[in-house]
């Protein structure tokens, strides 16, 4: 890892080589324990040509209540270079009661690069009955390939102002999961078969779809985190 610029409470581990050969694993740590009213996290990741990287968040991202009405903001910008590969393991984002959170993720790919990106949003600390008690949750993920915008996943949840249980909304689901797969080899994947496997094996509601260019998006809606 040639350059690391960091400022507490955010910290990146050094590159660990414990998996397959030539694959660097980097942990992103957040030493404060969570984001509090008005906090801001900025993460910029640049994956150089031919690099193979797995990034792992050390723990769930907890968003504490915002009694002062200030919004916590997280902005992630990722660039994946030619023939490079990035895997981002999902850790759950947990907005607590009265939390206000805004996150924006911008991913720039080349047609030769590979990406596996995951994300899970929790309704709150569900096991203690804190379910959709947050104020607002805004999330935008945009995926670009060679400068072209190929996907924008934009959510704006305000449980106090909308009926999330209505038909067509989240209904009984409490957890929202997404996986994005971008790869020059994506065309060879049989998405119909993957969809079929989901239908047979899972109580989680799942669907998979092809995006423009060589990308696939998969959405999970689940009542339980564990099942997902």
């Amino acid at each position, binding site marked *: 890892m040639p350059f690391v610029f960091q400022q507490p409470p955010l910290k990146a581990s050094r590159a660990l080589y414990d998996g397959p050969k030539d694959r660097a694993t980097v942990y992103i740590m957040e030493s404060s324990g969570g984001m509090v009213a008005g906090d801001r996290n900025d993460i910029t990741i640049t994956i150089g040509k031919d690099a193979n990287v797995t990034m792992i968040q050390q723990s769930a991202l907890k968003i504490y209540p915002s009694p002062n009405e200030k919004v916590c903001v997280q902005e992630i910008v990722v660039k994946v270079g030619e023939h490079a590969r990035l895997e981002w393991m999902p850790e759950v984002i947990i907005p607590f009661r009265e939390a206000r959170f805004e996150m924006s993720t911008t991913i720039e790919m080349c047609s030769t690069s590979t990406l596996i990106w995951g994300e899970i949003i929790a309704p709150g600390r569900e096991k203690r009955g804190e379910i959709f008690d947050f104020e607002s949750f805004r999330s935008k993920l945009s995926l670009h390939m060679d400068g072209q915008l190929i996907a924008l996943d934009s959510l*704006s949840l305000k449980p106090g102002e909308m009926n999330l249980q*209505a038909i067509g909304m989240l209904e009984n689901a409490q957890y929202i999961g997404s996986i994005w797969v971008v790869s020059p080899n994506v065309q060879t994947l049989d998405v119909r078969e993957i969809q079929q496997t989901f239908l047979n094996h899972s109580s989680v509601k799942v669907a998979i*779809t092809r995006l423009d260019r060589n990308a696939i998006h998969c959405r999970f*809606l689940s009542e339980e985190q564990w099942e997902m």
Partner: protein
Amino acid sequence: MKQLKNDSSNHLNTVDIHINSTFLHLLQIHDSAFPIGNYTHSYGMETFIQENRIHTKEHLLEFCKTFLKHNLAYGDAIFIQEAYKETEKRDMNALLSLDELCGAVKLAKESREASINVGKQFMRTILPLHEYPLLSDWQAHIKSGKAKGHYAIVFGIFCSLNNFDRDQAVMLHLYSTINGLIQNAVRAVPFGQNTGVQVLHELLECISEVANSVRGLTVQDISNNALHIELASMKHEYLFSRLFIS
């Protein structure tokens, strides 16, 4: 001409509908006989129907409300409004990026293709009616691949070029899309014609409220919270038998 422009910039003036052919033309492009193929798309509703999740009038009403308030309002309605404004400024680059964004938010492959196909049909139908240089340019961009030709964008461009009232155009678009969905549900579930009429009637207030709220929204507000409808659109292509293309 100036008078006409002033008249047509009145906001949602449903009480005082102007007696002129411009308004009739706006009605004409929303008529169910206008051949853009809306009746062939269910936008994910068919998955709900096959999973037996829409079988009462109340289910249909709730589904339409979600689609209206969380999909259309924060999606195509904003795109129409923005395309209308950018056409007034004759900003071709802004229109091209709107078209790109319009495809990017439609994550489900079939929703994206439906939007392009309806746009294509709309373009084919209106081109012989008018001679607008901007529309010919847009057609050229679609042919060269610079634009995909999403319906909401070409619809916004067309409404602006014709000086249709912007808010009325958005409202009528919401109305005709919801009407199309209800008619498709009447055929596919099936429901009686009267059920369809009653559901649409119960939604009229909601449609005009949503149209009103869209006026304050911009591209920054684009979102899609109707996640189960999106999931259904994604699953639609894998259904065993299908009445609708999307």
